[in-house]
């Protein structure tokens, strides 16, 4: 048993099962078996997933539809965002 996504404990077999259901992209596999949905958002596993798709469907890696990248870059707490917003508004307030 090979673990591909370490954040969500997704195995190679699960990814192959998703491909057998018709998935051909990294995003579809993420949605079906959660590979890449954890705290690192696929930084580790998306290349591995792409390799498995490429191998199973015999398509060159360059032809695999690229996944969507979304913010934030790293997990960030609500309190930090709130503090940042406060800092912004107080700085702008001083200028005015």
């Amino acid at each position: 048993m090979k673990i591909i996504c370490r954040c969500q404990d997704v195995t190679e077999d699960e990814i192959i099962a998703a491909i057998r259901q018709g998935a051909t992209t990294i995003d579809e596999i993420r949605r079906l078996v959660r590979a890449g949905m954890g705290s690192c958002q696929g930084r580790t596993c998306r290349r591995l997933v792409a390799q498995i798709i490429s191998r199973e469907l015999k398509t060159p890696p360059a032809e695999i539809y690229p996944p969507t990248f979304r913010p934030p870059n790293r997990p960030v707490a609500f309190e930090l965002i709130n503090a940042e917003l406060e800092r912004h508004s107080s700085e702008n307030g001083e200028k005015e």
Partner: protein
Amino acid sequence: MNKAFDAVIIGGGILGVSTAYELARAGMKNICVLERKYLASGSTGRCGGGFRQQWSTEANTTLAMASVKRLEGLEEELGYRTEFFQGGYLILAHTEEEEQQFAKNVAMQRSLGLEVNMVDPAEARKIVPFLNTELIRKATWCPKDGHINPFLLTQGYANAAKRLGVEIQLWTNVTGIMKKSNIFFVMTENGNTYQTPLLFNCAGGFSKGIGQMLNVDIPVDPYRHEILVTEPVERLWDPMVISFSVGLYARQEMSGGMVMGMGDPNEPVGTYVGSSMHFMYEMSQRFTRLFPKLDKLRIVRQWAGLYEMTADAQPILGPVDEVDNFIQASGFSGHGLMLAPAVSQLLAKYVIKGEKCPEIDSLNVKRLYNLKNVEKEKSVV
């Protein structure tokens, strides 16, 4: 390539695949679903995943109740795990006005046979711990509402439809439609033509454009709706919580992450689904106002999808006057996932057996051409 089918469905979201499945289950052969990208790549796969029966209009409540009834046995029927979970819906009333509106809603919903109650803030906090009860006056609680995984529900329907012989064409973008002697010719970007006597418009945020291809006005406007998810944490609560005043909904996924989103009245019409920093700030503020103790939760991802809005926030269903056999299932105004299980069944009955039903009649697109006597759905985040 030129292929003929008995029915062609445009859209591989929840409406498209569930309709394909219900048609096939009712005995129709030769059905084809055309999807511009992959399954649930549009609004379906970007939604909050809740299903609720607490609505302000009778049409929506009736449809939603039928949907939940359908969902109750669906995992078994499809042979697919969908994370269907009846954790309930708690809707918060912050103002006196809301309290009065909700009392009316509850009375209407109960008259239709729904198990729903008004609860006071203390009780609400028992259902959803960490809730800042200072902000609320009352809440409505329906334990039979809940949430479901939109990807798995769509895939479950699609797999079952394929077993019944339905063809699903992915990466097939419709670019034009022509109708000649009762046959639709659906042309796609990759140069194929699909012929059919029966055409469904389940194109979600793009259904207005599909209507235009046949000179039919489908007054649906897409608006971006942003949403985010936190890292997984231990079980905090079961229900979906919504507040129309604060303007948010939040639920915990089966895998532990808190999913939450909000409506933004300043959002312009359009199909743009990028992410914004504004949303991140606004969502953090709203969520921590309602749940001050949960401000250490960490966001791992934000994304966006489209609410396909109609003027009365209710869907457009059934035939159109201008073109025969052109069936609509769009304009769900952010609630397609939860209404699809019932709507797809009604549409299948309508086209195969010619059975009419009051919901399909009352939700015909015609009502939106004359906006004077429209009853607007109020319970929309």
